[in-house]
């Protein structure tokens, strides 16, 4: 009599583990990603060691190295910038203005805007910096 070993039942590869990993990755990227509008030009913020953590929210005024401006990711001319800022400030009087200036931007393009924002009534204006690498 010939005895044959029964072939083990074919089990398909379980994909539950794959689904779990993909789902956790998806949640991870959704949580840590901050949806911010980026400026239509390159902005490399200056490096500072004394900066503090920047909370989310507020309007972002980007200043390129050549002085070009963008408000919340959209290019804007200097002549209409104050009107746009006033409109936003009217909607939220406690609005924070984040000035994201390129590190090579000359201060004649930056400081007058900070002064103008203060004169318009912005009570919270911050300069965006990049934390210095740890020694």
């Amino acid at each position, binding site marked *: 009599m010939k005895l044959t070993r029964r072939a083990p039942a074919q089990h398909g590869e379980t*994909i539950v583990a*794959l*689904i779990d990993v*993909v*789902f956790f*990755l*998806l949640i991870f*990227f*959704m949580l*840590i*990603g901050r949806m911010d509008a*980026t400026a239509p030009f390159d902005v490399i*913020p*200056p*490096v*500072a*060691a*004394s*900066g*503090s*953590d*920047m909370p989310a929210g507020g309007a972002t005024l980007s200043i390129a190295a050549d002085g070009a401006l963008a408000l919340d990711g959209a290019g804007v001319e200097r002549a209409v910038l104050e009107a746009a800022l006033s409109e936003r400030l009217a909607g939220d009087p406690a609005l924070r203005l*984040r*000035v994201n*200036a*390129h*590190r*090579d*931007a*000359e*201060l*004649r393009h*930056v*400081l*007058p805007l*900070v*002064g103008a*924002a*203060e004169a318009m009534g*912005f*009570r*919270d*204006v*911050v*300069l*965006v*910096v*990049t*934390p*210095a690498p740890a020694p």
Partner: protein
Amino acid sequence: MAGTGLRRPTRPARLISLVPMIDVMLIMLVFFMVTSTYLNLDMIPAVHQQDSPAQAAAPSDAGGTLMIRLGSDGIPVVQGAAVPAGVLSALLAGRLADDPLLQVLVLPSGGATTQALISVMDEAARAGAVRLRVVRLEARP
């Protein structure tokens, strides 16, 4: 009359396929991985007005004043002498040891870069300056 008992066999419950959900999740994962830009950003307050006038009114006559001029070449100048990078912090620390309420004024040139101003503010903060202001000259209208 007794029935013959013919019954349609019940169909086994059909499993919902997970493949479309996996496809959607993978597409969303790739989307977030590709479109996300991860920046580690900090902030330095430039204007911070207190709600309470009592808090906003700081004693302006307490302590002395030290003016730091920032040239268009990015080199700080204190009392007419250029101060190399790295020395400014020690100089300010020495002055602040004598006068903890020393007010540090930074007068930058319009041609100086933002990085130069931030570096001076950084060194002042590192030296322990608590009263730091950036002033600028405006053209007379």
